């Protein structure tokens, strides 16, 4: 459920919609299977292109991969098995969404860490400031007169900032 929610949020935020460079002859007869194939295609990188998914790419290698995915799906592989198969063949470079593993912690965590740390810093500073800014003891009349002498009448103000 969570994954689905995130996927939809993702759709809202942007850009994982169906896009295509696929050819008419690649399309599977079974619409459900075809939909899964398209979904998987957006997750895999065209290895010879710059930053394009195999779904977007015109390159022959991307076409081979699209066909490969469909073959695996027709043989009854689950989505995960197809991905594993492609990764085993081409390496993790093929994944547009890197797996969450020790070597990608620094990729996945910072966005939320910035939010959390920023939030904590703001809250703590507020706390500190509230402590530091307790109203000062009122000045004695004599002190007030001397202050006025030193800095001028605050009510008039010279406007210098």
């Amino acid at each position, binding site marked *: 459920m969570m994954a689905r929610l995130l996927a939809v949020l993702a759709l*809202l935020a*942007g850009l994982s919609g*169906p896009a295509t460079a*696929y050819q008419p002859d690649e399309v599977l007869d079974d619409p459900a299977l075809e939909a899964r194939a398209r979904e998987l295609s957006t997750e895999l990188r065209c290895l010879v292109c710059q930053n394009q998914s195999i779904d977007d790419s015109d390159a022959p290698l991307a076409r081979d991969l699209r066909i490969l995915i469909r073959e695996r799906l027709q043989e009854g592989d689950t989505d995960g098995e197809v991905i594993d198969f492609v990764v085993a063949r081409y390496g993790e470079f093929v994944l547009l969404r*890197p797996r969450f593993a020790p070597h990608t912690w*620094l990729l996945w965590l910072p*966005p939320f860490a910035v939010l959390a740390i920023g939030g904590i810093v703001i809250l703590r500073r507020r706390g500190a400031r509230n402590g530091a*800014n307790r109203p000062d003891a009122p000045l004695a009349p004599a002190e007030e007169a001397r202050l006025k002498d030193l800095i001028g009448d605050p009510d008039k103000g010279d406007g*210098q900032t």
Partner: protein
Amino acid sequence: MIVETGHFALLLAFAVALYQAIVPLVGAQRGDERLTAVAVPAALTQLGLIALAFAALTYAYVTSDFSVENVWANSHSAKPLLYKVTGVWGNHEGSMLLWVFILALFGACVAVFGGNLPPGLKARTLSVQAMIGSAFLLFILLTSNPFARLDPVPVDGQGLNPILQDPALAFHPPFLYAGYVGLSVAFSFAVAALIEGRVDAAWARWVRPWTVAAWMCLTLGIAMGSWWAYYELGWGGFWLWDPVENASFMPWLVATALLHSAIVVEKRNALKVWTVLLAILAFSLSLLGTFLVRSGVLTSVHAFAVDPERGVFILAILCVFIGGALALFAWRAPMLKGGGLFQPVSREGALVVNNLLLAACAATVFVGTLYPLALEVVTGDKISVGAPYFNLTFGPLILPLLLLVPIGPMMSWKRARAWPAVQRLWGAGVVALVAGVVAFAIARDGPVLAPFGMALGLWLIAGALNELALRTGLFGKGVRTALRRLFGLPRAAIGMTLAHMGLGFAVLGIVATTAWRQELVTVMTPGESVDFAGTAITFVSETPRTGANYRDDVGRFRVVADNREVTVLTPSKRVYLPSRQPTSEVGIYPFWSGDLYLAMGDREGDAGRVVRIYFHPLVPFIWIGAAIMFAGGAISLTDRRYRVGAPRRARAAAAEGAGA
């Protein structure tokens, strides 16, 4: 001769920039007015010299002087005049020249329009501006000379990359650079303020218009790039989370945060340290973007290692300016005194939340863009980070921000109450709710949360209008009073409303086209028809054609809707002659509900063509939204308070604003 003059002018500009970097700064430190006074004439001279160099290169392009290596490598005599001119910045050397030209232009604008700046601040700001200028001028002179000659002179040029021969892409770099480079002014102001040790409401008031100007150019530049991608890539993708796009998006996010936090400094004298940091970061990310795009490091880490001269030079500039500014920040920022206090629930609090979320968004784009490079350098592992990553990280961060946008302006300064602020938006809430329900009813398929996205877009638009209605008293005082008050409103307030509204339009476009895009990929032969998205599309014919510097096959597709011919689309497959590079020109017909989008693919059999047909609902809203945001920025710039700007009056106006 003219070309050599341009080269010489560039050299002189470097000397002037060095002079401008050093003398006014020394003068400001010593309090010597004779020395600080040189900043203005130096800035103007520098602009004049760089303009001369730029004009010389443009002249070489327009006259197709192929004895200039740069012209030979990037132009062709058969190219249309427009693209001869825009070809000036369609390559590395020329685009760097444009970069320093715009930098000098901003510097000169500060010199001319900064009449009411305190002399010390002005001298220091112009000095920092010139430091950046001299670094990049040196970069051009040493590694990227656009004026190098060729001997013997070639007969014709190699031609501009055909994908750059396009109106949107031709004017995309100047706007993008105006955005990137415009942020240098905020940076220079921040560094100058750190040297002076003083950041106050007046400072924020001076910084804001420059940030607005840079931000709106960046907005338009990014929008143009995305529009280009939409019609050029052949399937209607408008944002691919490509590193090059991300490089421009990071400064945009931080500049947006800066716009908002500078308001707090101006009105409430708080968030100073953070605002200075943002001003430094915004331009630092611009420099980073320049480095990423210009060094070739994105294509591959290896390409960078093979020809590292330019990359290393920009990297050095990057380190000196970012490192220097951050070091100065670490040293001087603690001296900046915190200002006005505020409760968590307040206008200030809302702007802090805005900044926090925008910072997290920028961090996401930052790691997503740079982590793969860093990982490869450190461990040699290669990973890819693409749209699926950003959808999972950026999405959840931007959604709450969008939700909160209309609420922020409802909050009062210092202390507000959340619920009444939300209550005042009941009108916008109703509109958004209805929109969501309608969207849900019309579109049964598509993502479950897409109607929520539509509601969000309308929440932003209606929220902005709602805010305007409240400010003008439309709900209580009647239309006439409201109209009169509308013209009396500060322009900056109208600008904000427009910008927030534009954001809403962009959200509508993004959500609708992402969730409900329809597509049909099929093989068609002339005479054949297909039914698609309520229209009947007939492939009429295909004819070859020869253009100025290309040859193409033009298809004709008749589009019939409601038994009436709507249009004939003429997409084509094009081959540019000098380079033999193929491109695809799509046919687009804008219905009120969205774009019908048709692209021709490869030949199939004897007379067949692969045809890709799409319907992109509401997609123009994305760019209409960006245009509205740009207009909002422009209107905000005409606010007379920015021009008055002198501290005394600034304070009076601020008090007035806080009381309103």
